[in-house]
């Protein structure tokens, strides 16, 4: 509290504070230019498919090893996006523990990260109040807030330094990039292409942004759409499904009822299209951001990608908000009583 008062009343103090920020900033920019001078950013190898971090190298080719095998569904791979989902879980667990620690003895004054969470949650619920009836808020908001928190943290994990640039240097059969062995196990892959007869390498990163994996976004989308149907069923009972197969209208009026039946088919298609629209919107935005960052970092190695990173963080939070908000709007529509 005192700091705010000080900086408002004494402009000199504020100036001194802003200048203190400049020194590490200039230092980081110089470090950036220096590092790029010795190790140029490598040309990114982009794949829509995520890479498995468990693999064997056979005759210079990478063969992915399954993590474990499920009886009916087949092999499950430990991919690098799954590892970053692990990071998200750890972050959310730590947040939950902190919230528990601060609120267990009935404390009203939250501080630090819990205060931030409280602010975010109250802002989000205020925005959603218009689209949900009062008595359903208790059931719908947990979905909304947990979806927002999960996706927001998933999109913020790319702020961790070296998130997508550390990985296994795997040998490739032809082409690939030169690598400098620093120690027996630590290689620096350089931007130079491997000469003929030289072993070329490729990087499989340990982590990859969770939302740049189609499995993650589609799983969330399917969960959200199923939750919408379940809430609609809870609100209206079996009547809810007359939206999809309207037999009642056919019995009541055999001639015109078929129009309602046809509308039911369209509603079913719209429900399935919701999954695609939820999943691909998040995936497309985050994957496009990743590709943009990787290529920009390769083409303009100095400073510029920091600003794009700032923009990407904003886009990530916005997409998390949109995913949650759309879920709330659809849930609100599903539970609303028709007159």
């Amino acid at each position, binding site marked *: 509290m005192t700091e705010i008062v000080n900086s408002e009343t004494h402009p000199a103090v504020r100036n001194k504070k802003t200048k203190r920020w400049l020194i590490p900033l200039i230092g980081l920019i110089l470090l950036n230019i220096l590092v790029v001078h010795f190790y140029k950013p490598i040309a990114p190898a982009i794949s*829509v498919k995520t890479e498995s971090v468990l693999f064997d190298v056979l005759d210079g080719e990478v063969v992915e090893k399954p993590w474990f095998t499920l009886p009916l569904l087949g092999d499950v791979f430990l991919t690098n996006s799954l590892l970053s989902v692990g990071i998200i879980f750890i972050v959310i667990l730590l947040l939950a523990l902190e919230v528990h620690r601060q609120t267990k003895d009935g404390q009203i004054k939250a501080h630090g990260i819990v205060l931030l969470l409280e602010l975010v949650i109250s802002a989000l619920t205020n925005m959603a109040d218009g689209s949900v009836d009062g008595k359903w808020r208790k059931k719908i908001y947990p979905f909304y807030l947990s979806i927002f928190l999960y996706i927001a943290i998933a999109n913020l994990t790319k702020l961790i330094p070296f998130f997508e640039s550390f990985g296994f240097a795997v040998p490739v059969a032809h082409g690939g990039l030169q690598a400098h062995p620093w120690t027996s196990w630590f290689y620096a892959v350089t931007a130079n292409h491997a000469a003929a007869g030289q072993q070329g390498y490729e990087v499989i990163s340990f982590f990859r942004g969770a939302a740049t994996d189609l499995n993650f976004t589609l799983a969330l989308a399917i969960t959200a759409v199923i939750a919408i149907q379940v809430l609609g069923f809870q609100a209206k009972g079996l009547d809810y499904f007359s939206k999809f197969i309207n037999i009642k209208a056919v019995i009541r009026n055999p001639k015109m009822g078929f129009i309602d039946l046809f509308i039911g088919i369209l509603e079913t298609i719209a429900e399935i299209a919701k999954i695609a629209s939820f999943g691909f919107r998040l995936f497309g935005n985050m994957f496009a951001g990743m590709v943009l960052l990787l290529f920009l970092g390769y083409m303009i190695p100095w400073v510029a990608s920091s600003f794009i990173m700032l923009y990407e963080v904003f886009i990530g939070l916005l997409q998390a908000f949109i995913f949650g908000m759309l879920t709330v709007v659809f849930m609100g529509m599903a539970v609303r009583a028709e007159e």
Partner: protein
Amino acid sequence: MSVEVVKYLSVGLVMLSTIGAAYAVGKIGAAGLDGMARNPEASGSLLTAMILAIAFAEALAIYALVVAFLILFA
């Protein structure tokens, strides 16, 4: 024409759909600002509705982007 050329040409053609999304987003933004200027008290709820509508319009361009990525990298 080689396969590579067709690939890049088709990516360019697919991304033409951004014209429609850009038109829609511009229209929504203009209408939203119009509404906020006329009724500043309602700007909070207008902003939420505007962002949602923009998300719907933008989704079409994102589908095209996903198709383009699949053509390029998959």
